[in-house]
């Protein structure tokens, strides 16, 4: 009796979890298949879960326009340079802030936490970037997110949780804080640095609003911003714009193009996802090391 009840409960639980997985996968699968469907098939009324015949037409078209490839490089540049800058500032800053005996420590912490609770808002930030002459510059996107207070505190908590004996020994040997930072701290913090690097990397890859805000010149658009006009522009004028850029000159269905560019932007995330998942979950407990 109990056994039967248990099995019934298991059935319900597994069914719900299976439903959750299907609900997650289905939209992705749908668009993936749409991107491989031939233009003539798109409007035929059949469940677009599997294409009748696979065609790479939409992808060929996308790569022939150059616009998408160029924006891919822009995003790659922002992600790499931005993440490097993030890591340099965050690691150095976190090391300094891991010393509560540092004169002015409390003040620095307050100084960093205040913007987390209250920020000036979109317009004052926009005007600042404008006055700095950074509108339409990729540096506007890189510099405005140079340090995240959240990641800084996360890293600081991690460093505080490390055993201090190595550092003390090095200090007794007459090493400066710089030597400690490069020779001891960075090597032993590699997992934490990887986690925070991935936090920053995903942020840069997925960030689009700053691009919308600061870059009006469409030749400088990162992938996500370009994708936004391809997918969400209601009158599709921008797909028409893409069309004129095309050297291929064949008619392609907008729905195909939209699907293909969505998959194109999601693919890098999918490729690094196994790392992401492992390190991100670790990162969630990273801050709690010294609990």
């Amino acid at each position: 009796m109990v056994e039967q009840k248990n099995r019934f409960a298991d059935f319900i639980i597994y069914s719900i979890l299976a439903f959750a997985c299907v609900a997650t996968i289905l939209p992705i699968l749908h668009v993936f298949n749409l991107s491989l469907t031939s233009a003539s098939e798109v409007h035929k009324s059949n469940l677009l879960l599997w294409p009748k015949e696979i065609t790479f037409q939409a992808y060929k078209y996308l790569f022939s326009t150059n616009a998408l490839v160029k924006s891919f490089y822009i995003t790659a540049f922002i992600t790499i340079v931005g993440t490097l800058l993030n890591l340099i500032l965050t690691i150095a800053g976190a090391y300094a802030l891991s010393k509560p005996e540092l004169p002015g420590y409390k003040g620095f912490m307050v100084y960093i936490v205040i913007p987390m609770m209250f920020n000036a808002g979109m317009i004052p930030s926009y005007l600042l970037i404008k006055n700095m002459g950074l509108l339409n510059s990729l540096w506007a996107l890189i510099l405005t997110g140079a340090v995240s207070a959240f990641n800084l505190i996360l890293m600081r908590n991690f460093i505080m949780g490390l055993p201090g004996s190595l550092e003390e020994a090095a200090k007794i040997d007459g090493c400066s804080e710089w030597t400690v930072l490069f020779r001891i701290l960075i090597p032993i913090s590699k997992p934490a640095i990887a986690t925070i690097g991935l936090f920053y990397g995903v942020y840069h890859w997925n960030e689009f609003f700053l691009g919308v805000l600061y870059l009006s010149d469409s030749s400088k658009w990162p992938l996500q911003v370009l994708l936004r006009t391809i997918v969400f522009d209601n009158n599709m004028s921008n797909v028409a714009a893409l069309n004129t850029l095309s050297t291929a000159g064949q008619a392609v269905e907008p729905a195909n193009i939209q699907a293909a560019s969505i998959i194109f932007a999601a693919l890098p995330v999918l490729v690094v996802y196994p790392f992401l998942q492992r390190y991100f979950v670790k990162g969630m407990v990273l801050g709690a090391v010294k609990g």
Partner: protein
Amino acid sequence: MAVEHTSLMKTSGKSTGKLTGKSTGLSNKWRQIKKYRNLYWMLLPTLIYFFIFHYIPFAGISIAFKDFQPFIGIADSPWVGFKHFNMIYHSEDFYQLLVNTLLISGYRLIFGFPVPIIFALLLNEVRKQSVKKTVQTITYFPHFLSWIVYGGLILSFISPAGIINEILKGFGIPAIDFVTGPDYFRSILVITGILKDFGWGAIIYLAALSSIDPQLYEAATVDGSGRWKKMIHVTLPALLPTVFLMLIIQIGYILDAGFEQIFVMSNPTVYGVSDIFDTYVYRIGIEQANFSEATAIGLFKGVVGFILIVSANRIIKRSGEPTLW
């Protein structure tokens, strides 16, 4: 967002702020600072960053009390006191914004908040580790996609030619255009918001579940409790502090209402139901260049948000949980 904050909470506030004693002189203090000069150099770029990108904009808030003219500059634009705030207060737009923001956030709380909890409880009942891992891997994935990508996926999925409408057609229901027009838009926002983040949101609860002492379950088994009773009497009580914590944090961020998602998925036909503070600030401020009015609305949102977040933190602190600061 909310999930991310809790992972900080465990440790902060541990600052043993031991500064130099009061009796020590100025020269002693200077010696202290010199001793730490390398650390100050390391911290300096971060301090400069925060000063430029987070503190200088505070000065820009002044344009909420001015008639800002871009060609004159912030400093020389004439002061007008609370003119813009009065205008906002008497405009219908403002009430619509407030209603939209509260409704969308409210729906998210009522329908969205329990989902990761239930999901974590269900996962916790799965004995087979491989099944658990697979389900987690699949359901975490959308969290890592931008709202542009995920919104695009959803839009295609629910479009008149998409799968949902195909299924409806199978039941003889004519195709519904879910995203044009205000009828379904808020529901779409809430449902897709849940779909993107319920898996990831469960992590914090799974962490809490994994720290439950197995002896409690053993004792319950000895007492003859079944699965259901164990969940009610052992699992749920252990989860309650985390649930409370997450609830307070979410309420603290109620005015944000999921800006990125709404910014991406809305279109002019749904502004009446979808416009929240930030989308409105963007439209009238950046697109229509009404800088002063947009800043005033942004400031209103910022101040109320600040009060909410600080209060949320107070409540958490009073309940004995570790807080962010």
